[in-house]
């Protein structure tokens, strides 16, 4: 067979196949997001849903007498305090479990406590909904640590994000913020748990294991004995995706055949990680009484998302020019990929997982072509191409607010958003959010790169090394958790410096968001007239996209240029 002749049609057919795969995922997303968005709106508006009949009796028993289901609305200060204290308690609890895991049950492989800094980093990482892992799950943590501690945080950290988004939306639209504990519980019982139960069963059926038994023993063809790690994977897997957690049961995450065995589970897991951030945008539209605005923002993000996927996928399908030169024909870049998913589905996953701050991976981002590396990094910097669980939606509105502030003057009025004036307080709080990323990413990255021998543990020097280091901190600060990998990151420096980025990236914006919403809620709304800048128009949505590009992306352009851009040009 003549390779050179068959290569072009092959490339074309794999592009075509990829196109259908992408279209299917996007179509499912566009169909499911509004359903979920409407459902979440009903939950948080306190309206009846069809799940009430099943869950309400259970809730009444579990939370009997606590009053948590009907908590009083909180002020901004109370809300922030409740959130920080509850998160701190969970953090301490989980840290204790890790340090004592050797003495705790469900430890069939007899694992002992990890180093204190690794335990701390892991506890912070899961509390902040990041799930950055400087370890291999199956060989570091016991079943009890994984299910009891990490599984617990996967629900609560995701629910914290949703609660923040709902409080933020309520504040923007002039309502009281609500009660943190009530929203936290509702997020778990009405959104995360029901979807997880259904999703876990689907994964089980598709072949994902769920067992407390120790590793399976197998005898290989050569006659050697092999221990194959397994465990209670299915339920862990679904909340990992749904809650934008991303911390895999196994070290190689969703590339592992027990986490993500086939194309069906891959499709399910990809869609599941997108639905809540996408749905929340539409939930906003309903709560604000302006579904049109919700849809406009939804499509804005949808289009950016689709463009990113297209660029990344084309890059992977075209492959590495240096390799292609050797081969004499264009071949897709399959390094670091599972062959059962191929270049396109790996690219889709990479864009989705970095865009949504999920952080689960089904292929190594380290091995993506520079265009993919560029876009995954850009996703982490922007944090709004769907964005993190709850927080992504809030960031979108922060960008809307900043856009209103910068361009709104051009209609001849002082800027207002949703009928409320944007003044110094709002700008100070939004600025805090703008500042977090440069501080939590660029500064530690610069320190690490200044001492490459002692600190960095970079595996590929040169431009790629910069990408590795920046990616690690960006992933921490954006609460994504995925790794570029190839980095020797289980060191004291990495654990502690990444912990700083994790905490700053999570709590500074959350506190700012809550106070921002609280202040907005107290403002006297200004009635809308023909002279009011309408934010629910295609024009304004387009302007916002431009502002996001300038404010969000230009900040990181120099570092992107030294990383993936320079790498791309040097590949030829």
């Amino acid at each position, binding site marked *: 067979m003549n390779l050179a002749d068959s290569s072009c049609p092959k490339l074309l057919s794999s592009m075509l196949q990829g196109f259908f795969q992408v279209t299917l995922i996007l179509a499912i997303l566009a169909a499911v997001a509004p359903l979920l968005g409407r459902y979440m709106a009903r939950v948080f508006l306190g309206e009846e849903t069809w799940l009430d009949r099943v869950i309400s009796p259970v809730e009444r028993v579990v939370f009997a007498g606590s009053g948590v289901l009907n908590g009083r609305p909180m002020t901004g200060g109370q809300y922030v305090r409740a959130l920080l204290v509850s998160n701190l308690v969970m953090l301490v609890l989980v840290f204790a479990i890790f340090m004592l895991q050797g003495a705790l049950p469900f430890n069939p492989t007899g694992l002992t406590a990890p180093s204190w800094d690794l335990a701390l980093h892991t506890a912070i990482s899961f509390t902040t909904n990041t799930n950055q892992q400087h370890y291999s799950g199956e060989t570091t943590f016991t079943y009890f640590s994984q299910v009891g501690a990490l599984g617990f945080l996967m629900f609560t950290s995701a629910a914290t994000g949703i609660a923040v988004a709902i409080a933020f939306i309520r504040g923007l639209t002039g309502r009281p913020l609500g009660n943190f504990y009530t929203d936290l519980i509702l997020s778990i019982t009405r959104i995360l748990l029901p979807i997880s139960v259904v999703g876990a069963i689907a994964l089980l059926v598709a072949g994902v294991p769920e067992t407390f038994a120790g590793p399976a023993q197998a005898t290989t063809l050569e006659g050697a004995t092999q221990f194959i790690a397994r465990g209670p994977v299915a339920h862990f897997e679904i909340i990992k995706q749904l809650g934008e957690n991303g911390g895999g049961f196994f070290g190689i995450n969703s590339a592992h055949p027990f986490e993500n065995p086939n194309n069906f589970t891959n499709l399910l897991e990809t869609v599941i990680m997108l639905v809540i951030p996408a749905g929340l945008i539409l939930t906003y539209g309903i709560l604000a009484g302006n579904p049109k605005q919700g849809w406009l923002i939804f499509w804005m993000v949808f289009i950016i998302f689709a463009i990113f996927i297209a660029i990344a996928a084309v890059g992977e399908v075209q492959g590495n020019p240096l390799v292609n030169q050797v081969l004499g024909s264009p071949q897709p870049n399959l390094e670091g990929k599972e062959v059962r998913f191929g270049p396109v589905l790996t690219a889709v996953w990479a864009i989705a997982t970095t865009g949504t701050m999920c952080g689960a991976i089904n292929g190594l981002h380290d091995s993506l072509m520079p265009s993919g590396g560029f876009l995954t990094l850009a996703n982490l910097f922007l944090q709004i191409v769907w964005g993190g669980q709850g927080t992504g939606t809030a960031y979108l509105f922060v960008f809307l607010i900043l856009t209103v502030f910068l361009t709104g003057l051009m209609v*001849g009025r002082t800027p207002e958003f949703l009928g409320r004036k944007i003044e110094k307080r709002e700008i100070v709080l939004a600025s805090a959010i703008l500042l977090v990323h*440069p501080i939590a990413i660029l500064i530690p990255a610069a320190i690490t790169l200044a001492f490459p021998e002692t600190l960095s543990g970079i595996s590929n020097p040169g431009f790629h090394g910069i990408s590795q280091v920046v990616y690690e901190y960006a992933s921490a600060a954006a609460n994504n958790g995925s790794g570029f990998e190839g980095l020797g990151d289980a060191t004291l420096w990495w654990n502690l410096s990444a912990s700083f980025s994790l905490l700053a990236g999570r709590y500074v914006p959350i506190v700012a968001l809550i106070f921002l919403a609280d202040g907005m809620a107290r403002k006297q709304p200004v009635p809308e007239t023909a002279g009011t800048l309408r934010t629910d128009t295609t024009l304004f949505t387009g302007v916002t996209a431009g502002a996001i590009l300038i404010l969000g992306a230009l900040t990181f352009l120099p570092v992107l*240029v030294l990383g993936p851009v320079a790498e791309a040009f040097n590949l030829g």
Partner: protein
Amino acid sequence: MTSSTLPLNQPGGPRQQRKHTPKANLSNLYQRAFQESFRKLDPRVMIKNPVMFVVWVGTLITALLTLNPNLFGVVEGENSALFNGLITLILLFTLLFANFAEAVAEGRGKAQADALRSTKSDTVARRLQSDGSTEEVSSTSLRRGDRIKVIAGDMIPADGEVIDGVASVDESAITGESAPVLKEPGSDVASSVTGGTRIISDELILQVTSDPGKGFIDRMIALVEGAERTKTPNEIALTVLLAVLTLVFLIVVATLPPSASYVNSPVGITLLIALLVALIPTTIGGLLSAIGIAGMDRVAQFNVVATSGRAVEACGDINTLVLDKTGTITLGNRLAEEFIPVNGYSETDVATAALAASVFDTTPEGKSIVRLAEKLGATVSFDKSKAEGVEFSARTRMSGTDLPDGGEIRKGAVDAIRGFVRSRGGHAPAELDQAFERVSRLGGTPLAVCQNSDIYGVIYLKDIIKPGIKERFDQLRRMGVRTVMLTGDNRITASVIAAEAGVDDFIAEATPEDKIQVIQTEQAQGKLVAMTGDGTNDAPALAQANVGVAMNSGTQAAKEAANMVDLDSDPTKLIDLVTIGKQLLITRGALTTFSLANDIAKYFAIIPAMFAAAGIEALNVMGLSSPRTAVLSALIYNALIIPALIPLALKGIEFRPLTANQLLQRNILIYGLGGIIAPFIAIKVIDVGVSAVTNF
């Protein structure tokens, strides 16, 4: 847009010819601004503007690097004193241009203040003693509450309220209007005088209403000079955001060297500073305060004194204009047009009664009644010296004359007269209602005339709607501004005028209390309200309104309650003020957008130059000739764009009465998209020039 409506859009359009700014000496404005721009290099001044302060520090560092290129260590090939010197020079010019912009804006105000100050000199005042004698004191020793006497030829030494005498006063020093104004006590509009104006006939007894240094002219001087100029809330918020963006870029640039060194493409300090200065929003940072000052200045050129920049900004935000019908919507004076007899009287009978009722009426309306009656042949049949005038009051809503024979002749609002007649035992005929309706439906004001219990007829006072006012209200509506007309007229008349003038709402038979109530109702809905007023009973409403414009002819109380004073006493200006406020905000927004959009091109100029060793030539999309010329060109553009935009910042962006969305679309295209594209072209052009004269 037709040419006939075009001038109306522009502030000052229709009135351009009546613009009389006090004569300010602008001849050496630029010379003074040039000197000022160096004086402002003082770090204590610079630090107030965080963006430009960063440039200032950068300039200092590059200057040091010019003297000793290896001051901060040797970076291969980047230690050229010439290059560093050029960068230093460009940065210095960036600073000077920004200072110059501010100095020019301030200079206009200063010149105006100087002109005003020349009217203010220590004069001798005649203070009245308790025994009625006068003592001569210096004007600076006058205190609030003192009584003084001024006679023809005197400069009035302090702001005051006329308590006795009638005199004409030349107020051209503050209004520029050369025709003298009549001042007399007791009248709301004509009883206040301003220090610094000149009395040109007769004499007045005044009660001083301000302490020295706190008079109207003093306040005006402070305002136009910018001494009291504090940043508006929006300016503060924008300054915060610009400072944060500067900080973000500072972090971006400061963290670059380790990465650059890591990939063996080290960068020198000069290049880092160049990148930083190019990225931080220097354009808007340099022009921001000039835009604000120029906005105040435009108001001043319009002969309106604003007490704060905040008030000017608030004009742009106004949702509702509360307008007095008379003087704003209609020409000030209603004129008698026709006498309509009832009860079988003839037209001449009505004219005679109307004349009798109006002989003591000095209002323009009263005088026009007299004129019309005399034209119809009516004469006064009684001894005027023995008769007594009855003044109009808001309570009785009628005026008239008590005749020597005891007869009471009255004219006034129809229902007021009806009540008067009933109280005298008479009753109103049905024809009266018909006449009332007829006049009202014409948009006129019907005044009934009666003698004792007998109604003679109705006077038709014709109101003339100002030409062009309907178009202006249409424009306001398109801008989302609602207009509410207040009038003492009856409902029918009010509705006719309202419909003809095209106001959105009206309040008929309004009292001063209604004014404040309208404002409060609108404000309760979150709207910002603007109004004009001149009387003392307008003061509470002026204070309540978000923008209250007092007429200069109004009382001191009104002027103190208001946040703007119109020196021309033209209430229609309120509409122009809305435009000026919007213009100010649009200018600020447009230049901010432009400044930030410029960053894209500057990135594409400097980044490839900076990391030339990293093999990213392909990013040099402009094809700039060498890394050094690229950096120089970007910085030269960055410096030159400031003076290039000074005229726009001072003049303000042309305002068109469009809806918010149309405005956004238009301005985003010009200043957003333009801000992205323009620097690509400009930097390329500059690069061609730079590479032609240097061999970098």
